[in-house]
């Protein structure tokens, strides 16, 4: 397969399964996405959102029910996986248990009919890339989880594929190793200069690794944007919730001016930025606990009064639950240490109060 590609195009890629009662449901619905060479794309969403289905469709491990996949001018969705030549890293590593580390890594090269003289230096180079030199004669069962993961990565990249597909590759590692390997994956991606599609349910992983994030829900793309945009400007309430906007409050719309919306509730009045067209008299505001602060704002706008209900000490700061008189619960990340039962005020900047149509 030719490696000098410029883009991979997914055109309305759809995969349906037979659901209960014979009804087909779309695990993946019309995913359209163009990936440039060198890009790192994260498919992000909760389990069952279709992200792994998308990856398997691209790899060729699953047939499409509709749409097409193009590598430049070549249509590839009709090819079997062995003809596509994409490297894939599986969630449970899928190392061949009966082969040594070196044989595992060299497998793809052997399958391409390369002579031993060419295979061994490339395997050695891949081992160096994942920092496993000296382990080549061990069996996968003799390695730790982190080492196995790195063998899986080396095996996928040694064939120098145009595209590396990773299916939650870090989910079986402990927290410390996960962060280390994350940096490793980013470094290897840069070094290879090819494209990576990375499936995860962990927003931190997606934010730290990806050039662009594809947020999915129920097989449908919710937002495709750079990490900063997904984080700060979620396209809809689902993305907002998934990106950590834990304070979601339904209120009545009082007035709209441009994209500024003022909403009122029994004991709070908030002005925020409209992210989607509103319909009807009600809407929801979404706010991140980190962007709420204790105390009143300078001009008194967007200030809410309440009682401290619970304080969770987190080291650098505390997670404070504040309840208003009418019972609205707000989560606030605060550096101070208020005590349970204290009367407090909380404020939030207008541009960090996002307004969405209510569900």
């Amino acid at each position, binding site marked *: 397969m030719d490696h000098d590609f410029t883009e991979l195009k997914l055109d309305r890629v759809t995969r349906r399964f037979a659901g209960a009662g014979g009804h087909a449901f779309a695990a993946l619905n019309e995913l359209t996405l163009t990936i440039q060479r060198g890009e790192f794309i994260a498919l992000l969403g909760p389990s069952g959102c279709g992200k792994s289905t998308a990856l398997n469709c691209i790899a060729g*491990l699953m047939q499409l029910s509709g749409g097409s996949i193009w590598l430049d001018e070549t249509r590839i969705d009709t090819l079997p996986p*062995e003809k596509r030549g994409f490297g894939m890293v*599986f969630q449970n590593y899928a190392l061949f*248990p009966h082969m040594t580390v070196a044989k595992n890594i060299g497998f793809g090269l052997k*399958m391409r009919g390369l002579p031993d003289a060419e295979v061994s230096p490339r395997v050695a180079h891949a081992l160096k890339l994942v920092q496993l030199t000296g382990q080549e004669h061990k069996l996968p069962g003799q390695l730790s989880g982190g080492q*196995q993961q790195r063998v899986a990565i080396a095996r996928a990249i040694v064939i120098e594929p145009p595209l590396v597909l990773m299916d939650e590759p870090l989910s079986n590692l402990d927290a410390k190793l996960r962060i280390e390997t994350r940096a490793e994956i980013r470094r290897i991606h840069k070094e290879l200069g090819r494209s990576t599609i990375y499936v995860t349910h962990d927003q931190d992983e997606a934010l730290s690794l990806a050039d662009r994030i594809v947020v999915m829900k129920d097989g449908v793309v919710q937002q495709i944007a750079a990490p900063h945009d997904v984080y700060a400007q979620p396209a809809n309430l689902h993305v907002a919730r998934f990106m950590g906007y834990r304070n979601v409050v339904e209120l009545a719309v009082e007035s709209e001016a441009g994209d500024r919306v003022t909403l009122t509730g029994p004991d709070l009045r908030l002005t925020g930025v409209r992210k989607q067209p509103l319909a009807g008299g009600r809407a929801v505001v979404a706010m991140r606990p980190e962007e709420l602060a204790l105390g009143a704002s300078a001009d008194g706008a967007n200030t809410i009064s309440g009682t401290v209900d619970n304080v969770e000490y987190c080291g650098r700061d505390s997670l404070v639950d504040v309840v208003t008189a009418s019972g609205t619960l707000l989560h606030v990340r605060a550096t101070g240490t208020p005590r349970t039962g204290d009367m407090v005020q909380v404020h939030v900047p207008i541009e960090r109060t996002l307004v969405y149509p209510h569900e």
Partner: protein
Amino acid sequence: MSNATTAVTTPHATFDRALLLVVPAAAFMLLLFVYPFLYGLALSFNPKEGGALWNYVHFWETDNLLPTIWTTLRLALPATLINVGLALPIAFKMRVKSPYQRWATTILVIPITLGTVLIAEGMLTYFGPKGWLAQFLQFFHLYNGSIRLTHNYWGVLISLVISGFPFAFLLILSYITGIDPVLARAASTLGANPRAQFRTIYLPLLAPGLAMCFCLAFVQAFSVFPSAVLLGSPAGPTRVISIAAYEAAFEQYDYSLASAIAMIMGFVQLIIVAAVLGLRNVMYRGPVTGGKG
């Protein structure tokens, strides 16, 4: 520290009473396997006439005894190879869950519920000179010569395949479905076509299981008796070793010689099984999944 104190005060505390659970099984083995075996072994060295080894010398020197080993091997080895060789590709096809998988498996396994005698009965009618098969072939003029598939070597071989195949199939199927299918998928993303996936992933991981299956199928085929009598020609080409033992015991009433023949039969089986399992030891025998699950 506390361990040392306990050890001093109660020196017999190391006996694990859970080990007593082994007693029934051990007693069963002793009474129904070890004792009869040792009894037979001792009996084989107490011939009706001559010294302790007379039976064995007799077996070696008699024209209609020693060749029974080859006769039996000539049946058992091909039957085993056919069964394992046939079961492997079929089980491989059946590894993927599909709507018809259950039906196919059921049909393939049905012969297991039939005894050898029932199979022999059916085969005599079906494969006999006036059986359905011969009638069918002759009616459509596909083959007009005489068809002899009963009362000879082929009858016994076919019956061994019919009765032995389901065992081999079920055993191999369980080994194959134990292999994580994600390994083959990983191989495919690395450029392995289905053939290469079978050769590089499935076959090496299955090899120890195939060896085990071969041993079990072989032992079963080597002790062939009913079909050799009913479907073969027990006086000639299918005079297998178990027939020789039977004749010694129940026609000549020489239990000692019969025991000796049974011992030789066991010894031959042991050699083949040991050879195959020895081969198995040099193969990979680890977990068949691709990492921590």
